[in-house]
């Protein structure tokens, strides 16, 4: 009884001074810890300054071994992917570089006019002019080629995965945390698996770009299909649609605005990653920035940096224009 009474009183007094006492407690604890750090350095206690265990060597060897094993045993698979991607990217890049600049500009103008507005078209042409007069036409086309290939792969894989996630609860439960993790990882980390499996070069760059850019495509396809008005789906079922008809005639067409928003994000993320991928030896605008910075030529680096910004604006305006038109 006595104890209970004491406890109640104690809790009451704690509640009254809760804030001030916790702050005081944390501050004094920190002071004690800092004092201890000084003490450890003063006494030269090596055990506490360097961590006593280091398994990094061991772990690295294991990983090296397993990658080697994968490459030796499934090398044909990665070679197959690598060869085809190289071929596809090569064709795309050669084509974009081969097309004379006025033709490209007219094509972009018409494209922007058709899917956004003539104002966006004019803006795009001005942007391309700026890219051309600073002699960055070719690297721009290389970056665009990497981006186009990566976006195509992202869409081809992402939309079916999104559909799967919207239809199958188990698939959704598995995919959701993976996508969460993918979207919280810093973009740098994506370069690692590419180099591991394909070595330095464009193929690693494309893999990194696809991995980085695919989550919004999957997510928004999934979301778009889940958001389709239940009464319309019910009407579709009541007329005897099978699952494929339901998907192709009702759910996907009605989810198009959401799916397009996902593709827009995928495109923008692919652009960001295809410039960072210069780190693993992809060509293009990112490489220009990287090289100029390495050689301490600030002017060149700034110009190439601005070129990336201009390219991003052009691409964003066109794809955003498409979404606005669709949803209005």
């Amino acid at each position: 009884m006595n104890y209970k009474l004491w406890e109640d009183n104690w809790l009451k007094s704690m509640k009254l001074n809760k804030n001030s006492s916790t702050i005081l407690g944390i501050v004094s604890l920190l002071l004690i810890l800092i004092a201890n750090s000084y003490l450890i350095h003063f006494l030269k206690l090596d055990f506490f300054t360097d961590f006593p265990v280091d398994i990094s060597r061991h772990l690295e060897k294991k990983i090296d071994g397993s990658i080697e094993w994968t490459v030796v045993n499934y090398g044909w698979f990665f070679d197959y992917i690598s060869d085809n991607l190289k071929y596809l990217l090569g064709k795309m890049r050669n084509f974009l570089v081969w097309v004379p600049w006025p033709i490209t500009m007219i094509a972009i103008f018409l494209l922007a006019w058709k899917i956004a507005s003539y104002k966006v078209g004019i803006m795009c042409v001005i942007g391309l002019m700026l890219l051309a007069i600073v002699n960055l036409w070719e690297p721009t086309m290389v970056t665009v080629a990497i981006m186009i290939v990566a976006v195509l792969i992202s869409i081809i894989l992402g939309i079916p995965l999104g559909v799967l996630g919207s239809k199958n609860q188990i698939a959704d439960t598995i995919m959701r945390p993976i996508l969460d993790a993918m979207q919280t990882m810093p973009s740098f980390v994506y370069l690692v698996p590419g180099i591991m499996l394909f070595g330095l070069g464009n193929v690693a760059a494309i893999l990194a770009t696809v991995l980085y850019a695919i989550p919004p495509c999957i997510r928004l396809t999934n979301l778009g299909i889940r958001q389709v008005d239940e009464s319309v789906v019910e009407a579709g079922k009541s007329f005897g649609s099978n699952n494929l008809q339901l998907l192709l005639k009702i759910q996907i067409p009605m989810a198009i605005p959401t799916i397009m928003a996902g593709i827009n994000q995928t495109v923008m993320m692919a652009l960001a990653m295809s410039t960072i991928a210069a780190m693993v030896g992809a060509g293009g605008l990112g490489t220009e920035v990287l090289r100029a910075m390495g050689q301490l030529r600030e002017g060149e680096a700034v110009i190439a940096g601005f070129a990336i910004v201009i390219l991003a604006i052009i691409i964003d305006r066109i794809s955003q224009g498409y979404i606005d038109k669709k949803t209005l």
Partner: protein
Amino acid sequence: MKDIHIEVKNLWKIFGKNPNQVFKESNINRSKSEIQSELNLITALRDVSFSVEKGETFVVMGLSGSGKSTLVRCLTRLIDPTSGNILIDDDDITQFNENSLREFRRSKIAMVFQQFGLLPHRNVIDNVSFGLEIRGLQKDSRYAIAEEMLDLVGLTGWGESKVDELSGGMQQRVGIARALAVNPEIMLMDEPFSGLDPLIRRQMRRELTSLQQEIHKTMVFITHDLDEAVSVGDKIAIMRDGEIIQLGTPLEIISNPADDSVAEFTEGISRSRLDELQAVGG
């Protein structure tokens, strides 16, 4: 002896986990609210039985939550009943597998929805021909039928319009045309006019009655409005808490309500309407 088209026998629908525990001897006589509070199950339909003759308009009437929407969805298995049988042309549709169910939905039955359920990304004619498209009809033949249906519901020339440019009443005409286009034997109407303005509602009701005299479909019509039930129905079933509490012709229900709650419904019906019905019935 008239032709029985739809026969529903002892239909139950219980939502929740392990619905079959309701059928235990200790639970079967419990009320809806007892089952809900003690077993955490919702009884949407409770031992519902009725039959509909060929060409008849059968109205199911009740307040929201009375189970009428669940009932109409069971008739095309958009919701699977927990127990009971539904015989349509002597086939028990509760026993259908996926293929025969799809075939049944494509050929025999069509539904009109309260929220229209139209496809906003398609124009009117593609909406009307949707059911035919699902059946695999070629474009020319399905457009020909769809045009005919648009004429029938008074939307001649609106085929190319976008669905969302149409008013609510016109959208529901598209919904009706879409259902008629597949030439179903049975039409299910789930509160088709409840979302419309009162004036339009009355007009659509009249049009439906005259249309029905042309097409003679077997119709199951859901409504919460007794006035509507009386004007379109050959027979009316009144539902409460998942049960049918009265079933009869409009005249029977108005002149002889089964209990106070039904009487409350019928109070609103004007005296002149009753005389009108009596004149027709007598």
